[in-house]
């Protein structure tokens, strides 16, 4: 009996999950994706600032999160998603798609390089993560609007 409900339960979940994905707007998805980029950056920043001890595995985990961001972000800014869900996406993404793609490519390369460097101490981590951080900043400068604090 217990097993049966477990099975129906997971079946229901299987059915439910794709639907949950489908009902989430791209604006929401890219927001959530960027939040993962942020959390990954936080983990690395904590080590760079000396708040957390260096941990090579944590660094690699952040790199792999960023690889996921780099792989997915390109598809999450389709025409028609310029507004909605309090998006901070700037209209330049759609008026200058090429520039945006270059930013994304630069980011993606920086992440790949960082992962290949596989840093073993804080100094190496700083050198590896630096270009990634620069890529986050650079893309935001051109393609994200300021939040008006």
């Amino acid at each position, binding site marked *: 009996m217990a097993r049966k409900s477990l099975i129906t339960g997971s079946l229901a979940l299987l059915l439910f999950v794709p639907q949950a994905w489908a009902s989430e707007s791209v604006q929401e998805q890219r927001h959530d994706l960027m939040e993962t980029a*942020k*959390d990954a*950056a*936080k983990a690395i*920043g904590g080590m*760079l*600032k*000396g*708040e957390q001890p260096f941990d090579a595995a944590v660094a690699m985990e952040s790199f792999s999160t960023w690889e996921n961001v780099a792989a997915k972000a390109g598809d999450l800014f389709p025409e028609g998603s310029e507004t909605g869900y309090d998006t901070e996406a700037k209209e330049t993404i759609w008026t200058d798609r090429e520039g945006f793609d270059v930013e994304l490519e630069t980011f993606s390369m920086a992440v790949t390089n960082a992962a290949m460097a596989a840093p073993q101490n804080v100094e190496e981590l700083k050198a590896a993560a630096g270009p990634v*951080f620069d890529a*986050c*900043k650079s893309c*935001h*400068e051109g393609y*994200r609007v*300021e*939040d*008006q*604090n």
Partner: protein
Amino acid sequence: MGRSIKWLLAGGLVLAFVFWPLTQPVYLSLADLPDHRADPVNGEQIFIAGGCTSCHGDRLEGGQELKSDFGTFFVPNISPDPDTGIGDWSDLDLVNAMMLGSSPGGLHYYPSFPYTSYTRMKVQDIIDLKAWLDTLEPVDNPVKPHDLGFPWSVRRAVGLWKMLYLEQGPVVPGTGSDPVYERGRYLVEGAGHCGECHTPRGILGGLQDARWLAGGPNPDGEGSVPNITSHKNGLGSWSEADIAYYLESGFTPDFDTVGGSMVKVQEHIAQLPESDRKAIAAYLKSIPALP
């Protein structure tokens, strides 16, 4: 910018003429300069801290438009070109421009050139800065005159304004004994001119020292500039390490990125030594916390 202000200004203008001798630009003379051998290496640090390129352009070529309530300023060429830049200036000319807002031709500069902060710099540092500027490439680029409405177009009236707002002393009186704090103060109140954006202005455009670094409306239009005192509305939850790291990397403690007009400032401060960023952080954490 209502009618009352126009009247206030017209009044100010009358006063400016009444007090003609008082509104005369003030100058230092050669005898006031210290005996100092210029050091362009230090000059480059001062140049970076002062963020001159933020307004004058990467090659100091000028020509950028600065829009304000008073009209449009066209930022001058300060590259060492003798005809269209400041190539023929002496050390003394630069000291008078940056510390007293007075031009070699006997006129007042407008405070859109942030000499209200630079006035707190050391004369030696400005002489070093001049030596650094002289090593840069001259750019031949004539810049048109400012486009300002009356009465702002009358430079003489700036003399009165300066009497009210040009002060050389430290903004936050305090512990002259701690060299780290003093270095931070020098960078924030002087060369770094942080107050020019982070301190709200009164109706005549002067900084309100009582609200020092407490944030306010953005002078270039949209949104606001954050409070950077250690109040909870400001940097209360930031550690000194957080502040230094933000200035180095452009990431807040929450790992959001720096934006807006702060980007250039951050990129400049990132080029200074780590000890300077720590000094700025120590200063910001020590000054009065304002809501």
